[in-house]
């Protein structure tokens, strides 16, 4: 049954920020980087959430509190159960990127799915070249995965930034939009792939900068956000200009979705 969701145990859950919670769920559902699952509490409803890990035994989900379902989810505790179905969609074709440098650009909770890519890269480190990370958050309080930033900066080229600070800057990171940081960065335009995940305006601005740096559209991969109700290409809610974000995406090569309007 395509709508049937199975229940899984929450191994742990903690707040990452005031409105983002990380759930560790004991399950063999292991989304490929960029894929998502439908998470639900029977009686409340379902919400599509991207995988934020790459692990055969447990799944990390970053839950941002934005609606009914996510509001109910954050009341759950370690040991409680959630229902999951999936994984769904086409993620990043990591196999095709072998031998190339990878540039991951994330804004806000768009960094969560990129964390899944990083965990994938950790497990397949020899397959890829240099890894550049550009992660932008609103304020230092909004930074996700704070604990992991040190680890990432020791292994990869991490560029963490915050749009503004209201006092201290515990990360000692540049203050300004991630797009500004990107503008100044030296990046390999050859034999490299870019993966962007973030709010639509941030993605648009990022792409303009990348194009001006000489990247071409076929090097750029974006992840689109829609409210997936069925996740199996039927309900129509996720359709953008003839493409189903749930099954054709959510990850698209930029030239496939460039300039589409609705």
């Amino acid at each position, binding site marked *: 049954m395509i709508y049937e969701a199975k229940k899984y145990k929450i191994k742990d859950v903690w707040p990452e920020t005031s409105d983002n919670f990380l759930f560790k769920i004991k399950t063999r559902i292991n989304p490929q980087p960029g894929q998502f699952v439908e998470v639900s509490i*029977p009686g409340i409803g379902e919400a599509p959430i991207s995988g934020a890990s790459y692990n055969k035994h447990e799944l990390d989900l970053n839950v941002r509190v934005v609606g009914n379902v996510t509001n109910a989810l954050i009341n759950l505790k370690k040991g409680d159960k959630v229902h999951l179905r999936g994984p769904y969609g086409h993620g990043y074709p990591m196999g095709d990127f072998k031998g190339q440098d990878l540039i991951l650009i994330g804004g806000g909770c768009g960094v969560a799915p990129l964390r899944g890519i990083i965990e994938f890269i950790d497990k397949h480190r020899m397959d890829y070249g240099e890894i550049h990370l550009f992660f932008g958050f609103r304020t230092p309080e909004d930074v996700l995965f704070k604990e992991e930033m040190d680890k990432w900066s020791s292994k990869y080229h991490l560029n963490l930034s915050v749009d503004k600070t209201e006092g201290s800057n515990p990360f000692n990171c540049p203050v300004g939009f991630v797009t500004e940081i990107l503008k100044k960065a030296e990046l390999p335009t050859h034999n490299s792939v870019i993966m962007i995940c973030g709010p639509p305006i941030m993605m648009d601005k990022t792409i303009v900068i990348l194009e001006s740096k000489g990247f071409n559209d076929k090097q750029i991969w974006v992840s689109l956000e*829609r409210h997936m109700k069925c996740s199996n290409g039927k309900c*129509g*809610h996720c*359709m953008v200009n*003839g493409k189903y974000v749930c099954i054709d995406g959510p990850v698209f090569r930029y030239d496939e979705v460039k300039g589409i309007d*609705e």
Partner: protein
Amino acid sequence: MGRFLKKEGHKDFLGRLKEHAELIAPVTRDLTRFEVIKDINDINLKGKNPFFPIKKYFLPNQENLLHIRKGLTKAVKEHSDKRIIFGARLCDINALSVLDKLFLNSDYPDQSYKQRRENTIIVGVNCITPPSEYCFCGSMDLKKESYDLLLHENENDYYIDVLTKKGEELVKYLPEEESDFPLPRTDKKLEEKNLELYFDNQYWENDSNLCVSCQRCTTLCPSCFCFDVHDSVNSATKNGERIRTIDSCHSKDFTQVAGGHVFRDTRLKRYRHRVLHKIQFFKEKFGRSMCTGCGRCIEYCHSKIDFVKTINENFT
């Protein structure tokens, strides 16, 4: 191969259908609509195509996807009721081919839809003259498919086209003979155009300014079935259902995401999306138009917005 049914054998034929399974056919009261037949004399094939298409027998407006019992999910039971739908026309029948592409998709087949498709025998009728001036199926490349039997009326008899074994069972008492029949012809025709060129055309806006978002177009379309999924439970018992309800791309919150952003935030975008999905997007993906030319979305539109006319006359 097909069979021939003499005109005078018509009632006997309908009687046999009624005996075989629950019979559903057009009946005219306030409107013509499909209903369960108690008396075969109630059936009316003359006049208008039934107001509501046959999709509701496969995809009801509201349906339980899962039961919720004490906070856990439980599968719904199989749909095993056998029925015969008599008197559907080729537009509604071809719309089943469209819905099949979505709901019988091999990666994610929809069980309820599949069971109802398998349990339903379709005995269609071919339109000699279109039942409405709004019909334009003659330009929509309809196929002789997705029915079990189809009756084509000749002067003295009916030729019954037989496509399936289930259909064959119902007519094997009739003489067999190979014959052919023409598809319906309509005066109204949708011209084929490269709509990409007209994406920013002013006429989308002119049309959509008349739209009141009543959603009759999508409700009455035989091949539209976008839906919403939500849970409904009794707060004390925690028992309830996960429900699918028919939805419409003409509703404003259709593309709303968590946090409140609406992607198709104007009537223009929503109207254009519907029309393009019906006649362009679906075709690009599945090789056939989603629209089968029944004309309902024009005839019964609150403002009689006619996308066929707009495309034919204004996209030049």
